[in-house]
């Protein structure tokens, strides 16, 4: 197995597959999931490829399956997930599957059509029933009022028409029907306008919703009855009804007829109901039978489709008997690929073996890192910045530790860290279960995929919390402080509000307040109660940030050494790595050295030589070093070792010399080469037998660079140099964010404690209990939401930035492309099973 340090060695291979064996071979390779195929006919349209008909057949099958699935969902029949993983069926089985699905679809469509007709019938009868029932009300009402309502209209019309002839034409006609409820208001309005108010409309709601036979949705409808006079109005009213898609039903005029009709309708309804039930039962049986195989079929069809898509990438050879494909595969897994091919050939029954042949290539191979569930998340962090160039040093294995660590430096609180650790541990322990649940929320997915990162972040936060001595902003005196306040309790201590402990370790026994060894782990808890806690921790954390930052950058530069060695770029080694290392060391590593020196050789004694008040101010020293200016005025600016002046001047000059060292050689080399060879030579490369790809790649790279032109090289190199030199300064300053965020976190949690929780702790008695109960949830919620989630996210982002920009810029190119293996894994997981169906 390859390590994470470099990506896998890849090999471009050519596949010669017999036409009849190609399908099963590709199928086997898909199950294996270790090769990435290249498209050999990029200029050919999708629909002009060889296996487009097969793809289309698969599409068609998929459509049928979707149809089945939709029907199942509508009837609430669960799809059985057997969890097994069927192999892609052989091409000759495709016909069976097709026929099977075809049969099922047709059957279902037929049943559906029947059911729809029945449903429509049923709907019509129900509507008629409702009409008969409701209109009964209208008519009865009319009769009860002795025709007051109806007759009043009749009377009116009689009155109007009285001048004319009184004839049989005065009879009122009426139309009864059913209309969708939402269309009632415009219907009424239009009726009024079109008939000029000469139609009388009565309407009631049908209480229970009816089922639309086509869609199966529930719709609410209204029964209406319209009275009017004359044939012209009748056609007009009918047109309007038609326009609003109202269904009209014949309604007899006398009550006896209506009753008779109602009885008839009821019996037919009953009959229809039993028929409908039977149809539904039949449909359910069909669907239930289909539900068992559905998921399997889905997997099979999608595998087939994937295989044909892959085969569309292949070339046909001249004899048309053989398919030629090209693929990238990891060098170490070629055996497995061979084996899969042999299996595929055997399965297809072909006598001619499939051939896998290594090919040389000048193309950059894809980058393939073998990850497991632990390293996956960290690799993703690196890949999000840029996929590593082929075989360059992968920062992921270092990120594995440095990322959570830098996060923890900013998030340093053992309490918060512990909570985070618990949460991540829960996710890790319940991993399988949580994965099976397939929670779709994007946020959850992100967090869950980063569970191991969070786990490490939590663990490291506990560690840094211990070092900072911070537990929910409180310090714990675990090992006993090394400071002892030896004041007379009655005198000095009572009379003054603040007291200063004597920092001198060499003072006599009565005055010595600091003795013994320093606090064994982290910061002495005494600092938590001191007034100058912040200035102490600032000084500590600032220096620590610089040291961490410089060491990480230095490490980055060292990693670039491995890149140069790997690509046998001696020029790069001498003109990039060495001056970079020197530049960084001369200024920043020296600064770190001074930090350690200051920490170790000064203490609290009032002595001139080792006393803290005359300890060198590093900032001033650094500035003076660059300005070549040395003064004795404040004692902190004095030189503190002999020869400091000369040594520092030497360092600065060396650093300055590094700049042209980085800037000049490469353009110079390009210039000389151009001069030497006025026209491009046609001399072929010496074919070395053991020439590895890296060397070949490097030479290809050089070839490319030659074509780049001199001016490009100069600009390129200038940018690189300036970037590095300025980068060293700005990146070092950038690492101060470690201190800043850590300070912010500590202060915020302290504020939360004093402003919120202490209110609860300050009271006594029953009131205190009540207060505590009231205040604790607030404190807890704020702790989790603000301190852990918000601060955590911000620390995460800053850690991310420190890795992407400050660390990786020192060595990482990230110009590769990812290895995407042809694999059935995605089909197997069916993660997007539901999404796919919805589309």
């Amino acid at each position: 197995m390859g390590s994470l340090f470099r990506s896998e060695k890849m090999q471009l291979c050519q596949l010669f597959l017999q036409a009849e064996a190609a399908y099963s071979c590709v199928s086997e390779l898909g199950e294996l999931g270790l090769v990435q195929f290249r498209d050999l006919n990029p200029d050919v349209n999708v629909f002009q490829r060889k296996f487009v008909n097969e793809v289309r057949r698969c599409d068609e099958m998929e459509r049928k399956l979707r149809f089945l699935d939709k029907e199942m969902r509508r009837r609430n029949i669960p799809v059985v997930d057997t969890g097994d993983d069927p192999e892609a069926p052989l091409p000759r089985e495709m016909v069976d599957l097709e026929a099977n699905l075809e049969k099922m679809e047709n059957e279902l469509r037929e049943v559906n059509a029947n059911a729809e007709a029945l449903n429509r019938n049923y709907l019509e009868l129900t509507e008629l029933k409702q009409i008969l029932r409701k209109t009964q009300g209208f008519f009865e009402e009319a009769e009860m009022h002795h025709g007051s309502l109806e007759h009043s209209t009749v009377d009116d019309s009689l009155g109007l028409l009285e001048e004319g002839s009184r004839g049989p034409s005065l009879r009122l006609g009426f139309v009864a029907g059913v209309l969708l409820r939402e269309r009632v208001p415009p219907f009424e309005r239009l009726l009024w306008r079109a008939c000029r108010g000469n139609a009388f409309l009565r309407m009631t709601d049908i209480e229970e919703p009816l089922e639309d036979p086509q869609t199966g949705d529930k719709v609410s409808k209204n029964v209406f009855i319209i009275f009017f006079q004359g044939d012209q109005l009748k056609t007009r009213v009918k047109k309007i009804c038609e326009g609003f898609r109202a269904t009209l039903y014949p309604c007899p005029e006398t009550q006896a007829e209506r009753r008779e009709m109602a009885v008839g309708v009821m019996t037919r309804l009953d009959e229809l109901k039993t028929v409908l039930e039977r149809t539904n039962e039949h449909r359910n049986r069909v669907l239930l039978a289909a539900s068992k195989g559905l998921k399997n079929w889905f997997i099979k069809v999608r595998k087939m489709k994937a295989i044909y898509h892959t085969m569309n990438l292949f070339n046909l050879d001249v004899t048309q008997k053989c398919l030629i494909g090209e693929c990238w595969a990891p060098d170490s897994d070629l055996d497995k690929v061979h084996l899969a091919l042999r299996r595929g050939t055997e399965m297809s029954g072909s006598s001619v073996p499939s051939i896998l042949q290594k090919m040389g290539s000048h193309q950059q191979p894809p980058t393939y890192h073998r990850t497991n569930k632990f390293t996956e998340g960290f690799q993703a962090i690196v890949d999000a910045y840029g996929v590593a160039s082929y075989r360059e040093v992968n920062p992921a294995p270092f990120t594995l530790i440095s990322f959570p660590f830098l996060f923890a430096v900013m998030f340093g609180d053992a309490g918060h860290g512990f909570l985070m650790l618990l949460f991540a541990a829960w996710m890790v322990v319940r991993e399988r279960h949580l994965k099976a649940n397939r929670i779709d929320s994007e946020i959850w997915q992100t967090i869950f995929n980063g569970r191991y990162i969070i786990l490490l972040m939590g663990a490291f936060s506990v560690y840094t919390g211990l070092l900072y001595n911070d537990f929910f902003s409180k310090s714990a005196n675990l090992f006993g402080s090394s400071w002892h306040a030896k004041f007379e309790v009655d005198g000095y201590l009572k009379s003054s509000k603040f007291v200063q402990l004597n920092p001198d370790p060499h003072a006599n026994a009565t005055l010595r307040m600091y003795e013994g060894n320093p606090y064994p782990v982290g910061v002495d808890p005494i600092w938590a109660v001191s007034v100058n806690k912040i200035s102490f921790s600032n000084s500590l954390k600032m220096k620590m940030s610089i040291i961490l930052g410089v060491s990480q950058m230095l490490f980055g530069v060292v990693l670039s050494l491995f890149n140069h060695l790997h690509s046998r770029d001696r020029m790069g080694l001498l003109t990039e790595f060495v001056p970079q290392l020197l530049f960084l060391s001369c200024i920043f590593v020296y600064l770190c050295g001074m930090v350690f020196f200051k920490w170790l050789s000064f203490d609290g004694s009032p002595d001139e030589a080792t006393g803290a008040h005359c300890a060198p101010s590093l900032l001033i020293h650094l500035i003076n070093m660059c300005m070549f200016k040395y003064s004795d005025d404040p004692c902190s600016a004095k030189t503190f070792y002999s020869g400091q002046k000369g040594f520092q001047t030497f360092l600065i000059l060396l650093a300055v010399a590094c700049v042209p060292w980085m800037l000049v050689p490469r353009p110079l080399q390009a210039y000389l080469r151009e001069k030497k060879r006025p026209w491009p030579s046609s001399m072929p490369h010496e074919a070395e037998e053991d020439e590895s790809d890296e060397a070949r790649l490097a030479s290809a790279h050089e070839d490319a660079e030659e074509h780049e032109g001199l001016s490009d090289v100069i600009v390129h190199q200038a940018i690189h140099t300036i970037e590095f030199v300025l980068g060293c300064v700005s990146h070092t300053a950038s690492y101060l964010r470690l201190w800043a965020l850590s300070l912010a976190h500590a202060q915020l949690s302290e504020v939360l404690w004093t402003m919120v929780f202490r209110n609860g702790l300050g009271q006594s008695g029953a009131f205190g209990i009540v207060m505590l109960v009231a205040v604790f949830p607030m404190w807890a919620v704020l702790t989790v939401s603000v301190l852990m989630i918000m601060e955590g996210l911000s620390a995460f982002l800053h850690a991310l930035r420190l890795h992407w920009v400050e660390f990786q810029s020192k060595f990482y190119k990230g110009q590769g492309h990812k290895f995407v293996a042809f694999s059935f894994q995605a089909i197997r997981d069916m993660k997007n099973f539901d999404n796919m169906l919805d589309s």
Partner: protein
Amino acid sequence: MDSLSFNINGGYLEGIVRGFKSGILKRTDYLNLVQCETLDDLKLHLQSTDYGNFLANEPSPLSVSVIDDKLREKLVSEFEYLRNHSVEPLSTFLDYIRYSYMIDNIVLLITGTLHQRHISELIPKCHPLGSFEQMEAIHVASTPAELYNAVLVDTPLAPYFIDCISEHDLDEMNIEIIRNTLYKAYLEDFHSFCKNIGGTTAEAMCEILAFEADRRAFIITINSFGTELSKDDRAKLYPRCGKLFPDGLSQLARADEYEQVRQVAENYGGYRTLFEGAGTNPGDKTLEDKFFEHEVKLNVNAFMQQFHFGVFYAYIKLKEQECRNIVWISECVAQRHRAKIDSYIPIF
């Protein structure tokens, strides 16, 4: 309506519509589509564009009408999405886009009923963007006055219709007059609405609408030759918000033949080129196509500026053109009539 505050209400939708716009088929897509042998090939290629799986649930063999329906359905669902998320004044603006489809639908339905077609045959032919509640009851009316009083009075088109009430009965000629009067009133109203909104919207939209108005004036004039439409009546149909107003329109009103129309166009830089390139010989582009091309150009230009409503109008029009193109190509593919397959109008 300045760039400072546009994004408060319109930013999301503008972003959406610009996203939609980038899904419009490119020249290479058309080149591929033209090569298709069957409609299934077409479907396969459209799958690799932004149309995605919009035909995936249609059993093969496909027919052109299914493709047409689905294209429309997609356009309408996009429009509905925009409309549902919009607030004033954008929602009114989007409604205005709808009105032109409503006018077309009304005219289609009236003409259909005039030819004794049943209403249920006609409804599927109506553009879904222009459907309204009372639409299907339109055949109740037999005179324009009735049409207005019974059906249209509740629709937003009512004010445009006022000028048509005086017409006596519905025959072919009158329907055309009604359509053009409605369009004229609509365009003028839309034009003044955009002017009121002001800013970049006015800039972008007035340009497009002015062209639309002038195009109608030209086409009305050309189509009126040899009909019984009097010159006075014709002049009444010209929308008065284009660049031709007022001089060009009065010249057009006097025109008797195609040459004279051409003369009028000579005076206007933008239109001269359109008339110059157009011809009726085989191989030439028709004037109509030229107009379409120019329209596409104007609509594409609308996307050059930000913070205005013109993009919504332009998108709908471009998409409509794209639907026409796809339908044209599918029609050619389905009928195996490849000679004219290239006369689609590419957008980008």
